[in-house]
Every structure is written in structure tokens, then in C-alpha cells.
């Protein structure tokens, strides 16, 4: 069997199409496992994983922790709010301290882009990037593509529009890389102020009109408006944003085809999507959450199989 081409999952940019397919095939098996009466396998009994969250997160952290526990790994959690980072310790020192307690893998979320890559050059453990600033969030993109594949059979040839705050979104960047590697076409749609200047260089088209974008696509990925990352006003008001770029049931029903609606969460109901859209059959938001656990199990399992404790 093939194995991953990398020892860390730092971003979708650094892995191959084959890696993505391998992760999906492995995740298929884990999806079956987490739907059993007993949702746990003993594969990673002798692996210890540290979840280092230097930035707030609820579902990603919960999803990683569940994935680790369902593989029987030992898990330690760390959050910056209650740590010595506040006391001035450097990232490498913090992580090395944790690693000297014999940790094999680090799942890290950090506000600085490239934090995972930096760390991977200085420490021995496998690193999984759980979001680094506005750079990448690879497992989110993998679970998004896995959910598209599950619903539509394949990702190749599909048309996907990513709507909203592309500028601050690591989900958008990872999704663009993943979708393109798998052979999908990608457009982005949102207020001009929230579209990065050179996005076309990634082979992505920009569409300013939501209705047109939706008419074109098979899948609409509605990103969250990240108020906490906006240091200045990027659009006049939330109400105006919702009117121009919010997805309502009326708009959805006016299309000549049935598209799939995704959202990485947490949803601002009435802003990116209205409640009736979020709760409709076309929305696969909760499937995404369930698939998140299976996909993260696959990533951790495949990376862990490259860690050798036993020299034989």
C-alpha cells in the first residue's frame, strides 16, 4: 500500500493528489468505524498526541480530540489562555518542553501563518496544522472535499464557489488547493474588499454577483464572516453583507438546479445563510462535522504509521 509523501500535514499545498485520495480511502473505513456501536479501535495505543491551541477553537479541537481518542491515542491538551506563553516563553521552548514528556505528534493551531512549518524545522514530532493564521487549515479542506465526494460521487469536474471573506480565510486557501488538486473548478465570490488582490494567480476566477456564481456552481461553500479578524470595516454593515452575499431559500429555489450548500461553521444564521437554508436537505453542514472526525482519524493514522518506535 502507498503511504503519505509527507511526515507532517502542514498544508494542502505540500501534499499530492495521491495523498488526498489515500486519506479519503482511509477515512471511508474510519467513517464505518465511528458508526459502530463501539466507535473505537486500538491502533494508536502507544502514541501520545498533544493538542496545542494557541487560538480559540471549539469544534476543530473537539473533532481532533475525538479522532485521537477513537484511535486509542493518549491525548494531552494545551491552550494558550492558561499557559506560560503568556509569561513570555517562545514557541519552540513551549513545544520542546511538551515533547520532552515523550509526545509523538503535535496538533497545532496558531494565529501566525507558517507557525507549523517553522516548528517542523525545529522539532522531531509529526505536526498537524489545525489552522495557522490566514494561511491554511488543511483538515478542513480535506473534510470539505470528502463531503463533496460523498454527496456527489467525485470531486473531479465539479464546480465550487467559495463565498464570503476570502481575505482572512485559511479555509478558503486550503480549499482552493485541495479542490484544484482533485480536478474541480473554483470561483470565489464576495465583497471586493474581502477578495485578495492576486487571487487570480491561483487559477481562481472572481465573481462579484452571488446569483451568477450560484447559477454556475454545483457546490457553494459559504464562509463565515470573521469579525474578529477585521481590524477595519470591510463592508458597510452586516445587513448589507447579508443582502448581497447571504444565501436565502428564495435564491436557492430560484436556481434551475439543486446545488449543495456547505459551511465550515460556526454559522452566523441570517448572515452567510438563513436558517431555512442551513436546515434544508441541500445543506451538508452537519455531514461535514461528522466527516471531520473520520478524515482527522485518517490523517493521524497515516502520519502515525510513519513514526517508528521499534527499530527492527
Amino acid at each position, binding site marked *: 500500500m502507498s503511504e503519505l509523501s509527507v511526515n507532517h500535514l502542514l498544508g494542502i499545498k505540500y501534499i499530492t493528489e495521491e495523498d488526498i485520495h489515500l486519506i479519503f480511502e482511509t477515512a471511508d*473505513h474510519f467513517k464505518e*468505524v465511528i458508526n459502530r456501536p*463501539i466507535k473505537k479501535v*486500538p491502533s494508536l495505543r502507544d502514541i501520545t498526541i498533544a493538542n496545542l491551541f494557541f487560538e480559540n477553537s471549539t469544534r476543530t479541537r473537539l473533532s481532533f480530540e475525538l479522532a485521537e481518542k477513537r484511535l486509542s491515542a493518549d491525548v494531552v491538551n494545551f491552550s494558550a489562555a492558561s499557559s506560560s506563553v503568556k509569561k513570555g516563553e517562545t514557541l519552540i521552548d513551549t513545544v520542546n518542553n511538551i515533547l520532552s514528556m515523550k509526545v509523538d505528534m503535535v496538533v497545532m493551531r496558531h494565529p501566525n501563518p507558517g507557525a507549523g512549518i517553522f516548528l517542523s524545522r525545529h522539532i522531531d514530532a509529526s505536526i498537524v496544522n489545525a489552522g495557522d493564521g490566514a494561511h491554511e487549515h488543511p483538515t478542513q479542506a480535506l473534510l470539505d472535499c470528502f463531503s463533496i465526494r460523498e454527496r456527489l460521487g467525485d470531486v473531479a469536474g465539479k464546480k465550487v464557489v467559495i463565498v464570503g471573506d476570502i481575505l482572512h480565510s485559511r479555509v478558503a486557501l486550503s480549499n482552493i488547493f485541495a479542490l484544484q488538486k482533485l480536478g474541480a473548478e473554483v470561483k470565489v465570490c464576495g465583497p471586493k474588499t474581502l477578495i485578495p488582490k492576486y487571487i487570480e494567480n491561483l487559477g481562481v476566477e472572481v465573481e462579484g454577483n452571488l446569483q451568477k456564481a450560484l447559477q454556475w456552481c454545483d457546490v457553494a461553500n459559504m464562509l463565515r464572516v470573521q469579525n474578529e479578524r477585521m481590524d477595519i470595516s470591510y463592508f458597510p454593515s452586516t445587513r448589507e453583507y447579508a443582502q448581497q452575499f447571504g444565501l436565502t431559500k428564495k435564491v436557492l429555489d430560484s436556481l434551475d438546479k439543486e446545488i449543495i450548500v456547505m459551511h465550515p461553521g460556526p454559522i452566523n444564521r441570517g448572515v452567510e445563510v438563513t436558517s431555512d437554508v442551513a436546515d434544508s436537505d441541500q445543506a451538508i453542514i452537519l455531514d461535514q462535522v461528522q466527516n471531520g472526525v473520520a478524515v482527522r482519524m485518517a490523517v493521524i493514522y497515516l502520519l502515525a504509521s510513519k513514526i517508528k518506535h521499534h527499530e527492527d
Partner: protein
Amino acid sequence: MSQKVLLNATEINIALHRLACQLIENHDTFEDTVLIGIQPRGVFLAERLKRLLQEEYKIQNIRLGYLDITFYRDDFRRSDKPLEANKTKINFIVEDQKVVFIDDVLYTGRSIRSALTAIQSFGRPLEIELLTLIDRRFSRHLPIQPDYRGRQVDAINKEKVKVCWKENDGEDAVYLIEK
């Protein structure tokens, strides 16, 4: 590399009929019994036995599931490549059922050890039996023995026993391969 035939198609057929009859002796109508083929290669044998029991011996409603043991193996990260999983397909709860594990070759016993752990995810069976087509003596690492065996074989460790099935390998035969 040389190989010799341990069982030919006729001998396999005789063994399958005998194993089917032995199963019937112990399990009668199979009302509380489920068959579990161990992935990947036990599945062919399990399907054959199911078909035989249904067509030749007119036993209906035989429940057969596939169990993949990859995530339960004790050699994770000891081999060079990641262990590749297969599909687990068990559409019933094994709680209070008599379970018969079916695999083609019993060698070290480690696969069956893993299967014993894996099956617990589907409930608490009343009892578990083991059926194998080939039982390799002198090579067990664990205290595990089959309840039903097609043929006992004395093979040394550097030899390999290969079971071929018509539906997968083009012929029914068991070979002893010397590496």
C-alpha cells in the same frame, strides 16, 4: 521458488462439504449463529460455505458478515508501509449470537487474536468458534486452535501457504510455496 499442490479443486470441494456438514451438526438451523469472514482472504471461503449451506443443504437465512482487523493488529508501525484496511460489513448485532470466524489459513494466530478484539465492537457474542481451511502446525505464536479445519499442514516458516479461489485467482487450489 518452487511450489507444490497441497489440495486440488476436487479435494477442496470435499473439504468444503465436510466443513459445511460439521457446521450443521453444531449449529442446526443457524438461527442464533452468524458467520464472519475475516478480511481479506477469509471472505471467499465464507461466501463459498454460505452458498453451499444454502444450495446443497437448503439452510435459509444464513447471516454472513465481513470483519476487517487492520486497526486491531498488533504490528502497527512495525512494518514499512501503513497497514491497508478492507471493508467491514456486519449488518447485524452479534450480541448473544454464536459467531463462527472463517479464515483461509491459520498461521501465527495473531489475525484471530485481532479478530477476537475487533468483534467486540459489535456486541458480546455468546461464543466464538474458528473455522479454517488450512491449519499450519508448528507456527503458532498464541494459544489459538481451530474448531473446524479443512486440512492440517506441516509447513516450516520460510514456506508460504497460498489458497486460490476460482472467483479471485482463476482456480481452486492450495499451494505450498518455497521462497
